């Protein structure tokens, strides 16, 4: 399912790329509780289309193990895109081995969080990503 919710500024918007519908709605719920707007896509292909179409988001929450096109490929494409390269990307993955985490950081991830996740920790890390990337000050206060 590809679901797109509103993206009006100045509320910071987060692109959530997650194939598990329940997990995606859980993430959306947690982020919306932090006054963040959520744009949701269910696979790497839809994310690539969004990147190429020139959509803008303030940060990305990326599932690492996506069907068809992996999280690594999506992240690599983002880093090559002038509009997306500076966006903070928080990788969310069930994999917790050091090599995989290192690969994500080498590819340009700003942070890495393992599943299952703690909602408070996710919010804190994402808001820190937003503030350190010069994101909206309102997000930092939220």
């Amino acid at each position, binding site marked *: 399912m590809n679901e797109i919710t509103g993206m009006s500024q100045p509320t910071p918007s987060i692109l959530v790329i997650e194939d598990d519908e329940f997990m995606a709605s859980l993430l959306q719920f947690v982020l919306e509780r932090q006054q963040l707007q959520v744009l949701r896509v269910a696979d790497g292909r839809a994310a690539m289309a969004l990147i190429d179409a020139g959509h803008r988001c303030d940060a990305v929450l990326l599932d690492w193990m996506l069907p068809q096109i992996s999280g690594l490929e999506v992240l690599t494409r983002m880093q090559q895109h002038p509009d997306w390269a500076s966006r903070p990307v928080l990788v969310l993955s069930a994999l917790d081995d050091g090599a995989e985490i290192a690969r994500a950081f080498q590819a340009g991830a700003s942070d890495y969080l393992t599943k*299952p*996740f*703690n909602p408070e920790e996710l919010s804190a890390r994402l808001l820190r990503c937003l503030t350190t990337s010069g994101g909206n000050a309102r997000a930092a206060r939220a």
Partner: protein
Amino acid sequence: MHVPHAPEFSLSVVLWLAWTTLALVLMTVLGLLLLRWWRWRSEPQKAAFRQRWSEVLMRCALGEDLKGQLPHLKSKERWAFMKLWLHCQLSLKGPGRDRLAALARLMECQSMAMRKLGSRHAAERLMAILALGFLKDEQAVPALLEQLHQGEKQAAVHAARALLEIDASAHVDQVVQRLLTLTDLDFSLVSVLLKPFRGVLARTMMEGMPPSAPLQACAPGAAAAALQWLRLARALSLQVPGERLGAFLANSDDIDLLIATTRLMQGEQGTQALIAHAQHQDWRVRAQVAQALGRIGRLDDAELLARLTTDAQWWVRYRATQALLSIPGLSVQKVQTRIECTGDRYAINMLHSVISEREAFA
């Protein structure tokens, strides 16, 4: 003598068979249409149920006060609620899970989970086992211990998780003991389900690490027990000290044991122990050594790996080439130069194949 009119008899049999077949086909089609219709009718209800209760569960997990706001849960919806609740439990960590457990206790899910332990369907039994664990229901411990010790393998692993959820320190010894005796264990399931308790399991596992004395001198079955321990350690991603694993490598000639030990190797001491087995007579051990060096090896190991690329066995050449390309600080050009120096055309061909493979996956 009277002979029955054979063609007429055959025709009636054929006609009867044709009608029966037609009737069966029609009944099947009708059945399929009914199932689709039933699914079409029930899908919106299921979606509405998921929507309604997902929100309740998420609000509960985030600590919102739900007093007096809980929707009515019909008795036929209880199992669907339990599935959704389990999904939520498995997706989250932190205090949210305790709040979810309190909510499920409030909705009296324990009794249903206990009933489902006796279900004919394995999936329901496994879910019930997990649910009892997440509910932190002390009264369910005897039933869960029974599943751990007498249930089938999958049930035992699920019961292990449930018992650790209820009280990890109280049940960890029994869990480890049972997992070490279960043959043909699904180690990927162990890895997924028991990952959150890796720390507590690691302590108990290390205390019970099998002796690394020459296995021939140990009790019968020592090699099998050691192999199970090593495989379980790998499933739980245990960091076993290199010197202890090195002793296993030095004292054993069991191929499965050597391979399992090689897969666990870490750090510089591990590298030294591996190098000693790079010329092992069994090619499976040599291939594992090459693969492990790709994981933990350094620049100093490049020469040994380059030698392994000329091995007589295809798999050893393949793993050694992959390993060379994974060594930090060694560029593709440098690997190419090293392999070309060997003058072995099979090694050079293998390098081209592995580079193409990497480019295809990149």
